[in-house]
């Protein structure tokens, strides 16, 4: 069977891509952010997962407002990154994984999550920034990625309780796959931020730290929030927490935190990093 061996949450802000491209990681502004990543990279290099299931949102590269899936899953062998319009460098294609992704898609729809299934999909910074953070220098080609895209851009959008259920079903689907594969989950985006309106610039450090703690120890508490609550407390784009909640839903048993960091501001946001393991089923 396929096993989830751990999970990582990380920011996916475009400015990170520029900082990496311009080799600014050790500049005072960026150092407290980038210095937190080596332990996560070491863990990934030691564990050598086969597949990453990556929860993200598309910020207007693949999906426009003409057709807006609430939940989409990629089943392609490869995903292209293309020009997003405002100047972050495009990066080499991302390797996909069609067999497990079709299995997950089949299981999800069978169990009531009617996914949009994408056999061709451009992936934006929501996918590429986390991959390049974990395997710098675009060295992520060996990792097979299954992108799971959640609408965080246009209301109505899926609520925290619902994305948690999605994660739970994805966890079950992975466990029921009959080939030996080690899977790591990535929950990307967040945390508190608001880019638009007179309230732009909002960052809620206390809330972010509370969310990071609850994500580990009491995820169901996070599912009690509505998107409206998240926006009120953490800003208009705090709904990106939904990707973390979905990721957490796929984990089971006692969850152990191996590493964490929080730094704010990065660009206009609070940037959180977690490396988690959970109870593995008996072999």
């Amino acid at each position, binding site marked *: 069977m396929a096993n989830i061996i751990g999970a990582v949450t990380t920011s996916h802000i475009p*400015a990170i891509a520029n900082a990496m491209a311009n080799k600014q990681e050790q500049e005072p502004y960026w150092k407290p952010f980038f210095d937190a990543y080596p332990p996560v990279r070491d863990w990934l290099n030691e564990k050598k997962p086969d597949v990453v299931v990556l929860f993200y949102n598309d*910020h*207007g*590269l693949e999906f*426009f*407002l*003409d057709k807006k899936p609430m939940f989409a899953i990629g089943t392609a062998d490869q995903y292209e990154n*293309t*020009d*997003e*319009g*405002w*100047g972050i460098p495009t990066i080499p294609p991302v390797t996909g994984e069609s067999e497990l992704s079709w299995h997950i898609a089949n299981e999800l729809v069978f169990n009531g999550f009617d996914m949009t299934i994408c056999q061709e999909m451009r992936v934006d910074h929501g996918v590429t920034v986390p991959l390049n953070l974990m395997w710098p220098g675009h060295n992520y080609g060996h990792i097979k990625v299954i992108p799971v895209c959640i609408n965080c*851009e*246009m*209301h*109505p959008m899926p609520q925290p309780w619902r994305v948690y259920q999605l994660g739970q079903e994805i966890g079950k689907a992975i466990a029921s796959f009959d080939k030996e594969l080690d899977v790591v989950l990535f929950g990307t985006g967040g945390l508190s931020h*608001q*880019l*638009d*309106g*007179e*309230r*732009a*610039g*909002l*960052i*809620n*450090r*206390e809330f972010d730290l509370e969310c990071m703690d609850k994500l580990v120890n009491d995820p169901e508490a996070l599912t009690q929030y*509505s998107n*409206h609550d998240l*926006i*009120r407390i953490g800003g*208009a784009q705090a709904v990106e927490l939904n990707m973390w909640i979905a990721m957490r839903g796929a984990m089971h048993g006692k969850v152990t935190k191996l590493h964490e960091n929080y*730094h*704010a*501001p990065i*660009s*206009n946001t*609070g940037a959180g990093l977690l490396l988690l393991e959970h109870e593995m089923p008996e072999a």
Partner: protein
Amino acid sequence: MTSKEMTEIPGTIMFDGAMSRLGYGLNKMCYSFNEQAARDDFLADEMAYCDSFGLSEEQKACIRARDVLGLLKLGGSIYYLAKFTGVMKLNMQDCGAQQTGMTVEAFKAMLVKNGAGDV
């Protein structure tokens, strides 16, 4: 609570169905800026390019003025407007400063203060 019972959050425009409908052409134009050729066409004749996406006179006036807050109120989504402001070489701190009526330096200082939990 039903979906209609959401209370307003001051300083925040919910990008919902009504706003998405109002800003459809505007956002579609901004979505086109994913392509370099479209950015070039826009810069060559901004108002003609706006017309080709059916922008209203109010929306065109806000494009001309690079008025992010005005565009948001006319149905712009920040994710698409970011592509427009990118063409204008404005980053998210520039946009934040503009929307809050601060200088860029003051806006960045506010981010640092908020990030430190010093509120």
